[in-house]
């Protein structure tokens, strides 16, 4: 944490708020507050300078706003500097593409991303990937293994993970990154990208707690242990969603 209180910034909800991903900020803020951590949740609108924060969340958006969000984040550089100082990032869908090296605009031209993750997105050849996703997290060094991820994807991009990042998970149901390698999402350092909506942290509280633990710990140190919460509601939802996905065909 940079200060006495944990600051969580939802990045550009006016541009990247199309798919309910602002809920990730709510989940993080409640889970911190319920543990007695003093927390500030900032809706960082695109018409103001991006604040310095301990934890940034980015969500999905339409093509035009996605390009504008990337241009603004690249131009002002606050998020990249904060990440260099140890800030944590959760980037979803369009946000995932934005924090990568490059992604396609609606007219096909290639737009530079913020470059926090070594991933590159191109336009997919087929129809949009829309539907439930189940993915098995790959081991993240220095952290306990995460339970199965559940979410809902809705994207037309295909994302390739470069050598500077690692896939977040292997797809069990659904499409994920879509490059044919069966991967979903990516991570490097304290930056996590994923295609999962739901919002992803509403369905996967263990991922929320990993991000919070990172944000509460100095970079390079093992993450602090957070006290467990009563997760009856998220647990019931996870059981139901995983069972529902089980009734659908497996990923090819």
């Amino acid at each position, binding site marked *: 944490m940079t200060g006495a209180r944990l600051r969580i910034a939802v990045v550009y*909800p*006016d*541009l990247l*708020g*199309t*798919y*309910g*991903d*602002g*809920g990730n900020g*709510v*989940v993080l803020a*409640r889970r911190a507050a319920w543990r007695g951590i003093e927390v500030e949740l900032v809706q960082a609108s*695109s*018409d103001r300078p991006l604040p310095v924060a301990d934890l940034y969340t980015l969500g999905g958006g*339409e*093509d*035009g*706003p996605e390009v*504008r969000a990337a241009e603004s984040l690249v131009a002002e550089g606050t998020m990249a500097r904060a990440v260099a100082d140890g800030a944590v990032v959760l980037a979803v869908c369009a946000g995932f593409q934005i924090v990568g090296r490059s992604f396609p605009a609606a007219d096909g031209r290639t737009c530079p991303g913020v470059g926090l993750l070594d991933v590159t997105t191109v336009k997919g050849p087929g129809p*949009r990937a*829309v*539907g439930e996703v189940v993915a098995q997290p790959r081991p993240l060094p220095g952290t306990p293994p995460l339970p199965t991820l559940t979410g*809902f994807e*809705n994207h037309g991009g295909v994302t390739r993970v470069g050598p500077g990042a690692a896939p977040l998970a292997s797809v069990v149901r659904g499409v994920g990154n879509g490059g044919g390698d069966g991967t979903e999402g990516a991570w490097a350092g304290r930056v996590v990208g994923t295609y999962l*909506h*739901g*919002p992803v942290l*509403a*369905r996967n509280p263990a991922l929320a707690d990993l991000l919070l633990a990172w944000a509460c710990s100095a970079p390079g140190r093992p993450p602090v242990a957070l006290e467990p919460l009563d997760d009856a*509601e*998220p647990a*019931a*939802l996870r059981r*139901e969603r995983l069972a529902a996905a089980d009734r659908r065909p497996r990923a090819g």
Partner: protein
Amino acid sequence: MTGPGPSPVPAGRGPARPLRSRAAAAATRHVNRLSRRLGRGHGTVIGGRAGLALDPRLVARLAAGRPVALVSGTNGKTTTTRLLAVAVASAGADVVTNDTGSNMPAGLAAALATGPRLGPVVLEVDEGYLPGQVETLRPTAVVLLNLSRDQLDRTNEVRMLAGRWRSTLAVAGLSTVVANADDPLVVWGAGRAPKVRWVAAGLNWRADAVGCPACEGRIRFDAQPATGSAAPGRWSGRWSCPCGFARPEPEVWLEDGIGGSTEVVGIDGRRHRVDLALPGRFNQANAAMAATAAQVLGADVDRALVAMAGVESVAGRFTVAPVAGVPTRLLLAKNPAGWSELLDLVSPGTGPVVVGINARVADGKDPSWLWDVAFEQLQDRPVVATGDRCLDLSVRLHYAEVAHQTVPDPVAAVLRAGRDRTGDRPVDYIGNYTAFHDLLGRVGR
């Protein structure tokens, strides 16, 4: 819906219909009757499909030569269509309308094939089908209510839709467009139409309106006057983008009148009280839009508003009916803008609220939008979560710190909520599209 007096609009006989159209219309009616007899739904869409298969131009042929009004937008279509239909009927005309909310071509065909063969036509049209229907039907009036996100996994980008409205309406020479001046996307959609009547109908949900459709810059909204503010005044404020795209000066608006009343100003140079049985400011705004369109079709505004006042429910919405013996007010919200309106409507109360969420095809299969809705407004109320996706809702309520019960079956959920009733206030049930219809289908059983 017939009454005495002359029709305000010439109910001219259209050109003689070819045999194929007559056969197609007859097929529509027969299939619908069969469908209803078999107990399969309202029996509107299936017959319309049969008719359109026989004659793809059936809708245009059945409406030929008649005055037509089309109503579109994300929220309020069904209610506004109903208000406009009773307003036009108040002058004695026999009106054809699709009052079940079937708003795609098959539903339009079914309404036209089963309704009166002459006289005015008032149709609710799906936002995406509007351009095609404007070209086909050459309407006298087009009512544009609002545009916001709906059904996320249908990739229905609202900006693109506004652009399609814009290019179609630019050449729709015969139509008068009645458009909501408070919604930038609607203003963009109507912006090139030759004849527009701008109505300040308000905009409850702005999250989809901040990106300027003209330049992709950022639209700024002036502060909105507070509800029921002491000084009577207009309800909505200006908006503008630095590029110059800005709210047009509305010619029709709503004001707080004397003693808590509401008045609509500007339709015909006089002030008119808006007294509705339907609840909420958003329905008063729908009535202002409908009254303006009714006047375009030749109706008298006072008579139109009196007729609208008698509407108590619309396709089951706003009805108070017993559900397993528990008096229940049935409310439908399909998207964040609609939820915002209905939570504002119910939140002054203290009684139990049942919230029903499904994620079937008609609802959109991704209920992530639950996180765009301020369910925090239900804190301190007895709340029951129900529907196919009651567990998604339960997690949302958990993080909103709203204590609640989770009961998947909607009737059982209403029964559970009924235990917390005090006095004779009904339980409020708010469902999204199929969750609402699930419960509506079980009313009184």
